[in-house]
């Protein structure tokens, strides 16, 4: 029995995969000259843009979700549709966000690779592989695709982190990321095996039907809609596995070390693309497969969200390194993104997920903007601490103002309306969902967050360092690619500040098709 494959639906990841193959071949056969570097970067960028074009075309093609890799009707149980790859609005929003972020990351990579010392072909190949995984993951609707896509997001990132060879910090960061990530994969797989054992299927739609009691489970019988203990263990293990990927407490401790040790573009990749993929997977599993068992996971998610935002913010307070501060702040932001998932049952499920996704999209824009400026500054300073940003607005007005805007957005203060709106969306869902205590925790955390974002922003506007002209450590020429990266990220953040309805419209309707 041969399945018909709808190539238009799988075009975005397919284009990226082909681009990855092309980059690998070009790297192997082109002579190793400085010009080759630029060629490879442009091929990568072109691949990402073509893929983005397909996503836009799919979005423009109307709201009906398209799917492929379906179980033929003759073999499937008619009760549920079983498809492995679905391009609905949820998929398209995530794929679009990942690909726009990918453009920024590729531009940052060009700047990073201009310094030499990192093999270029391998870098772009691995980068493209990660993008393939991150675009495939939100479209996956069975556990096998989900696991493979998640691994495809994670595996190349270890190598990317370690690619700066003979650098103690980056190989240490790689080994930490690797061990944590591999253990989390194993934990998640064990949970997946338990869920499969109970439901006897890997398709999320069918899992959802089994766990909500519509279809008789072949494995273990549900007693009055309640899972047996083994099912609870399965749910907890799967949630724990994803919690590692999104750096939620208590699985957060790797974040700062890895962000600091990895090259800056990889830190940006981890904090936006890899995190988005983790959230996509988590939302898919919880909402599409386990919505019938919400009583089991809602309290876990609520507590995780509260702990994550609190721990992230408290740890960020004492950081002096810019990248470490961004790392802990992104842990805290994970908590805010996680929070609406805890009210998917009591509030309207679709709008709660919409709030989560809206926050994620806005967070991606402002965080990438901040990382792009950090990348720019990291080229001229060695330590990249907060004090190095003193007076940046006067030295490099564009970069300084961009960073200031992004930080204010992250804090959620008025000029940066995007961040404020994102927080309001989440608050509204929490209050409407009757989870007042979580809203309170979030309010307190927003105030804590204000402190360290404000301190950093204040440094930007502080007068230049007092002890005269500091012997700048040989200002290396910054690559021209950093500025467009900053431009894109900040433009998107400004757009969301001016017209937040845009992102809300896109995400609110993105219930699964």
């Amino acid at each position, binding site marked *: 029995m041969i399945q018909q494959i709808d190539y238009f639906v799988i075009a975005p990841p397919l284009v990226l995969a082909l681009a990855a193959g092309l980059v690998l071949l070009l790297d192997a056969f082109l002579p190793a000259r400085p010009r080759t570097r630029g060629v490879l970067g442009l091929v990568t960028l072109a691949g990402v843009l073509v893929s983005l074009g397909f996503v836009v075309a799919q979005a423009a093609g109307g709201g009906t979700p398209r799917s492929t890799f379906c179980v033929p009707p003759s073999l499937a149980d008619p009760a549920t549709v079983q498809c492995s790859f679905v391009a609905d609005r949820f998929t398209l929003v995530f794929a679009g966000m990942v690909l726009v972020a990918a453009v920024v990351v590729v531009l940052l990579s060009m700047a990073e690779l201009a310094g030499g010392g990192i093999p270029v072909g391998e870098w772009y190949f691995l980068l493209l592989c990660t993008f393939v995984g991150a675009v495939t993951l939100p479209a996956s609707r069975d*556990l*096998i695709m989900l*696991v*493979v896509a998640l*691994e495809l997001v994670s*595996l190349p990132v*270890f*190598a990317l982190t*370690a690619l700066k*060879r*003979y*650098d*103690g*910090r980056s*190989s*240490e*960061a*790689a*080994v*930490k990321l*690797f*061990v944590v990530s*591999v*253990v989390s*994969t*194993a*934990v998640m*797989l*064990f949970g*997946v*095996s*338990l869920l*499969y*054992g109970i439901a*006897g*299927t*890997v398709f999320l739609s069918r899992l959802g039907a089994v766990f909500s009691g519509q279809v008789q489970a*072949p*494995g273990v019988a549900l007693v009055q809609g309640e899972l047996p203990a083994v099912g609870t263990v399965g749910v907890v293990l799967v949630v724990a596995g994803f919690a590692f990927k999104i750096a939620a407490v208590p699985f957060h401790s790797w974040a*700062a*070390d890895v962000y*600091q*040790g990895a090259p800056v573009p990889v830190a940006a990749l981890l904090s936006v693309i890899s995190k988005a993929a983790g959230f996509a997977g988590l939302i898919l599993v919880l909402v599409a497969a386990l919505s019938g068992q919400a009583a089991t996971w809602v309290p876990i998610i609520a507590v995780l969200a509260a702990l994550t935002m609190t721990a992230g913010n408290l740890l960020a307070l*004492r*950081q002096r390194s810019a990248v*470490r501060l961004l790392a802990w702040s992104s842990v805290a932001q994970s908590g805010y993104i996680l929070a609406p998932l805890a009210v998917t049952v009591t509030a309207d499920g679709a709008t709660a997920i919409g709030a989560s996704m809206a926050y994620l999209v806005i967070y991606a824009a402002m965080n990438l903007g901040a990382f792009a400026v950090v990348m720019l500054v990291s080229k001229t300073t060695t330590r990249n601490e907060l004090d190095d940003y003193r007076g940046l607005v006067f030295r490099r007005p564009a970069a300084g103002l961009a960073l200031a805007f992004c930080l204010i957005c992250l804090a959620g203060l008025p000029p940066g309306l995007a961040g404020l709106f994102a927080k309001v969306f989440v608050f509204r869902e929490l209050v409407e969902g009757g989870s007042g205590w979580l809203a309170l925790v979030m309010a307190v955390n927003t105030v804590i967050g204000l402190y360290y974002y404000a301190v950093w922003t204040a440094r930007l506007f502080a007068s230049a360092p007092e002890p005269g002209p500091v012997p700048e450590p040989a200002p290396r020429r910054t690559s021209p690619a950093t500025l467009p990266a900053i431009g894109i990220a900040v433009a998107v953040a400004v757009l969301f500040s001016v017209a937040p309805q845009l992102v809300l419209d896109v995400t609110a309707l993105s219930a699964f098709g």
Partner: protein
Amino acid sequence: MTTHYLILSGLLFAIGAMGVLIRRNAIVVFMCVELMLNACNLAFVTFSRQVGNLEGQIIAFFVMVVAAAEVVVGLAIIVTIFRTRRSASVDDANLLKY
């Protein structure tokens, strides 16, 4: 009959998890992770037999391939850290701190 296999799988997973938490050599930690992955495979194949479809076996194939890819990437990273540090102990990985 599948109960025995599931108990074995649970035991293997627990042994692997304990090893990850207790052992200090990166390569041994890594072997323990492989043990956990193989425990997952055993559970998948057992459940596949129990519920009577092949999906569990297909996952097991993918897990094997993923595990192999992880082995290669992981060992390569451990080799690079060994070259810079002359030690494979995870306690010696301490450059990145506050």
